[in-house]
């Protein structure tokens, strides 16, 4: 099983519908990935971390 942030949108949509994963888990996985690698890529220019997941994502605090 690959990382949540690597799963395709189509598969994620199915997993969300079947409640195998929550939207919060998916969003936090992507945000943590952003925080881990965007300094190297400089590809995200305005992040939405705090607006989306205030106080919930440990990596965002």
């Amino acid at each position, binding site marked *: 099983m690959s990382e949540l942030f*690597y799963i*395709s*949108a189509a598969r994620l949509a199915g997993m969300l519908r079947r409640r195998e994963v929550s939207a919060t888990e998916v969003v936090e996985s*992507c945000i943590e990935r952003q925080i881990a*690698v965007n300094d190297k890529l*400089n590809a*995200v220019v*305005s992040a939405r971390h705090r607006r*989306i997941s205030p106080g919930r994502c440990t990596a965002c605090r």
Partner: protein
Amino acid sequence: MTIKDSFDTEGVISTGGTFGRQQYVPQTDATVVARVRKAGAILLGKTNTPEFTLGGLGLPTTSNLLFGSSHNPYDLARSTFASSGGAAAVVAAGLAAFDIGTDYSGSIRLPAHNNGVAGLRPTAVRVPRTGHIVDYGGVCDLWQQVGPLCRRVEDIELIMPIISGPDFRDAACAPVPWRDPGLVRIAGLRVAFVTDNGARGDEAADEDTKRTVRQVAKWLEEAGSRVTEGAPTQTLVELSQANEELNSADGYAMWQRLAKKWGTNNISPLRRRWIESSPPRSSAELVEIWERHDAAKSRLLQWMMGYDVFICPAYGKPAQLIDGPLVDSGGEQDQGDPVWQYTESLSSAGWPVAVVRAGSSADGRLPIGLQLAAAPWREDVALAVARYVESRSGGWREPPL
């Protein structure tokens, strides 16, 4: 999802890479953003793009004066390429499930190629441009198109029906039904391919790129497609040249209007030089180029009626070094070889073109994506072939990050 920073996003800064919009917070979403949000997508951030998505620093990577350069996830010293390069790098590295980009001269297809993801430039005017920094209207109206960048082709198939169709603001947008790529049979498809569509100079295809095209042709043959090598390369080159002549015919007055509209004083320096060194052509010359462009477009379409799919490189080589030679082609009209010859000609054609990772550089590190083009409105054919190529090549791979 993330969204290319040239699209308006309600409540989120949307700079389009220009100083005049450094604090611009739109009141409404661009049409495509509103549509994917309504379908449940969550916006995780905005992705880097050159000023007005049209370049101007001359660096071979996605870059602007506000935020600097983006880096390729497969080699951080290399380019993400063109104007949706931030989007493609984000998707390749798993920072979001998908992004929505725009493609004027190649800006979905080239980033998809460089960053090893799947992208679709849809048929001209299938998807509304409303709310993009360069939207609709004018001589070059048919070039700016909107499409998704994803890790997997199945995601393009998921997103396209959501973003397609008129919004009754982009007056060119056509209500053409979406066809299911799952119904297309690869066996029996008539396929034309070229390893090099006439591109010269720095853009001529290297051996890795040619090998990748031949491999894809072989895979399609194995699946029962009828594969032929060859294309009217002279027409492709003429179309690409006419595209560039039209692009600069107004002496970049369009660019100056954009800067004025958004109150940008410090525009990208190379673009300023092009503006200063490019006198506008006469209206008679403009119309002549336009007619020559459309005549070549018609010839290419007539040829395509003999095929279902046309396969060629997206670019001559894998991702370039960021600190490489400047791309400086705009100042002197009619001089030198066109840049982005593989993609520009198909922008002018207006056909749907899917790109998917089909191979790699000889050392296996850098992705090589190819253009898989179909006749107008036949995204189903282009995407079915993209799915098949993905099944053989493996498509997107995890970057070493």
